[in-house]
């Protein structure tokens, strides 16, 4: 059981690392929302699932099962709210008239070190 919990945690942290690197390296804020929205949600599901598994596997009583279920409910909540928040940010950007990144601007961003 502990091996499974560790495996899920490490997979979740791989997703989180990808999300952090994507947020740092992507050229535009529209493209930055892609790792921020997807990889954080997936890493969050993996780590929350690992911790729920650990709590239930520690002692199989009603209280610990309820706690594990609550941890999974947080994961379900984030699965609803994270795409909604991402959509709200994109909507604000589009309505403010910000233009998406195109390839001709690559040199400008490279000069800034972004």
């Amino acid at each position: 059981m502990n091996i499974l919990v560790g495996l899920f945690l490490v997979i979740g942290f791989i997703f989180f690392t990808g999300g952090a690197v994507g947020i740092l390296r992507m050229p535009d804020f529209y493209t930055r929302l892609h790792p921020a929205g997807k990889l954080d949600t997936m890493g969050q599901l993996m780590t929350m699932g690992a911790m729920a598994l650990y709590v239930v596997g520690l002692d199989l009583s009603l209280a610990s099962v309820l706690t594990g279920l609550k941890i999974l409910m947080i994961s379900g909540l984030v699965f609803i709210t994270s795409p909604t928040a991402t959509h709200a940010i994109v909507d604000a950007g589009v309505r403010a008239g910000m233009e998406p990144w195109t390839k001709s601007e690559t040199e400008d961003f490279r000069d800034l070190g972004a």
Partner: protein
Amino acid sequence: MTPFFLYSGIYLCFLMVLTLYRAIFGPTVLDRMIGVNAIGSKTTVLLVLIGLIYQRVDMFVDIALAYACLNFIAVLAAARYFQKRKGLYDETRSR
């Protein structure tokens, strides 16, 4: 298993520092909102990890749930605010 959770929490804090760069130096306001949102979603995981380290998961789960709701509402409100105010501009273009 507790040292493993401890090192996981430290690594998660390191990732939050990486994301904090985007929240501080982001060229636009929306970049900062992305960084804050990502830090918040990592914080919910970190809160449950802290609960596992201190062996009080039943209490910390509620805090994490409240933090997830608060993070969502904050990002939604900020997005609506900047949409109405049209105060967004690309700070790299204005140089």
